């Protein structure tokens, strides 16, 4: 007769880069149920919006997370611009999308390295993180910072990135693509990788829809939802955009989606750099510009981990009443508990890694 045991997993665990705790209810090495818990790094950043004026808060938003840093600043700025009714120049929109896609490459390479490290593929981990340095170098050359870029502001961008720098970034991306091709072939075709990822932690299409999953986690189960298809910002100027999906629903499918999204991001950057307009990068709103009382707006953008929701509400002063960020991880926690049901205890780290949770974002 088998007994049920509760195994505490995390918040500090060798394969977990983030402080998430799980109570794994196991029976004979099989997980019957997984109950997640967060709350170890809550910083009250949403509350801080009441103490920083709406221009300053961009820099706070950027510090919500170290991986999707640029996206958070962009999402907040875009929501505030919508609330204030500000139009930004096309060039600023293009630059934002280019930097967001570079962030996607950097995030996916970081994740790929962590996954390789998770199953003991140390050399692959090192190669992925070496390639990621190329993106950080591009950030440093174009924005000045490697992680926190501080180039976004409400009303546009703090400074322009000239065309020569953008072209040089594209050349670096060509080199990166060549090297990445070798790495991704190893990652997706290696038997040891397949044996750890194929058929593990499967979520089917219906479950993904009913659990409102987002990002590569949902796309791995065949869900085509991607906010970039709505054509917001400069995404609307792309010749063609089709979200990358896979129908298997297992860890391997999620891995494949992320690997291919890197190629897609490189293609988007090259296309936008080739046709970037020259109409300025906008300017900060004047000191008299204040959101109206009870003015509210929200935006949904596609972060590397999936759709993120940014909501702002004004109160007639330069301070806001409310800033709300719903991160992809918060939305995917339900899917994670489902994916962990019925799996072997040894597969739990792999499944969590392929979901790529970011608890810093989720807790804010």
């Amino acid at each position, binding site marked *: 007769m088998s007994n049920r045991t509760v195994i505490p997993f995390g918040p500090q665990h060798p394969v977990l880069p983030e402080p998430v705790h799980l109570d794994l209810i196991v029976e004979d090495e099989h997980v019957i149920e997984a*109950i997640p818990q967060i709350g170890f790094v809550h910083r009250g950043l949403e509350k801080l919006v009441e103490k920083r004026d709406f221009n300053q808060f961009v820099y706070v938003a950027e510090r919500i997370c170290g991986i999707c840093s640029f996206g958070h600043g962009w999402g907040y700025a875009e929501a505030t611009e919508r609330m204030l009714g500000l139009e930004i120049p096309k060039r600023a929109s293009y630059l934002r999308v280019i930097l967001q896609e570079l962030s996607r490459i950097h995030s996916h390479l970081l994740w790929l390295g962590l996954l390789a490290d998770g199953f003991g593929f140390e050399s692959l981990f090192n190669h992925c993180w070496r390639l990621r340095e190329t993106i950080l170098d591009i950030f440093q050359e174009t924005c000045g910072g490697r992680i926190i870029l501080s180039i976004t502001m409400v009303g546009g961008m703090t400074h322009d990135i000239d065309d020569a720098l953008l072209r040089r970034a594209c050349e670096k991306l060509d080199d990166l693509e060549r090297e990445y091709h070798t790495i991704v072939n190893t990652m997706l075709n290696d038997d040891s990788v397949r044996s750890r990822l194929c058929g593990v932690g499967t979520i089917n299409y219906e479950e993904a829809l*009913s659990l409102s999953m987002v990002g590569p986690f949902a796309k791995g189960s065949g869900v085509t939802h991607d*906010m970039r298809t709505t054509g917001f910002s400069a995404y609307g100027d792309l010749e063609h955009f089709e979200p990358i999906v896979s129908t298997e629903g297992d860890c391997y499918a999620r891995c494949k989606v992320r690997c291919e999204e890197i190629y897609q991001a490189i293609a988007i950057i090259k296309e936008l750099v080739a046709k970037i307009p020259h109409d300025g990068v906008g300017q900060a709103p004047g000191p008299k510009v204040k959101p109206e009382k009870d003015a509210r707006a929200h935006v*949904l953008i596609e972060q590397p981990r999936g*759709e993120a*929701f940014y909501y702002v509400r004004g109160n007639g002063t330069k301070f806001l009443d409310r800033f709300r960020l719903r991160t992809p991880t918060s939305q995917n926690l339900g899917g994670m508990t489902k994916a962990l049901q019925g799996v072997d205890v040894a597969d739990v780290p792999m499944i969590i890694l392929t979901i790529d949770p970011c608890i810093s974002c989720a807790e804010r």
Partner: protein
Amino acid sequence: MYTTSFEELPLTELLVRVQTLKHEGIRFVQLCAEKGSDDALDLLYTFYDEQRDEALNYIVPLAEGDVVPSIQELYFSSFTFENETHDLFGVPFANMKLDFGGHFFNVATDAPMTILSPEQKAARDKAAKLEAAKKAKAVKEAQAAREAVEDSSAERALTTSAAEADAAAVAEVDKLAPRAAKVDAPADPAPAAPAAADASPAADDRAAKMAAKIAAMDPEKAARARAALAAKGIVLPDAADTKEGE
């Protein structure tokens, strides 16, 4: 580009509307609380209709004491947001499928996000102080009652503590002059006084040193030490005399 709409929805109609949205295959995006009218709270539910590319926002005003029905049965992923709203804003939810009981976010203050203005913060601080004072008063009263009950035993406890203090003093004296104590205190305690009188010159010297050390002590402690030695039959010379003799 997607469109956005905001609509006010009474709390009583929330579940019915969410059921309809679920039936239509509309995706749940998020739930959060925010400041409503008269410092009450509003809940903001967001859904996304992928067929029409439309974000649907429902603002649900809350009144004091309202309990919000959980939508986890329909959209399980809302468990994160319902627990978060409960922990940060103190909004109660009914029939939650996964309820962390206020421990989803381990924050130091209950409902920290509900402080919306300096006036509210001052009121909350004042209430916290009153609560703390009330608790302190209750503790003090309970202690006084306990002391009244244990009044007789308290005296006994005091006697015991005095005896303990004497024993400590004796131990200290023994530590200061163990040899003197050994020499001065023979195996048979009865003839202790004559033995002290017949002490050798070396023992006298040690006793004089010990007397000097006792004289350097706190007067109360010194008196206890002298009393303890006297009980053992050891009489020390007066420290002042010792100095003169030297």
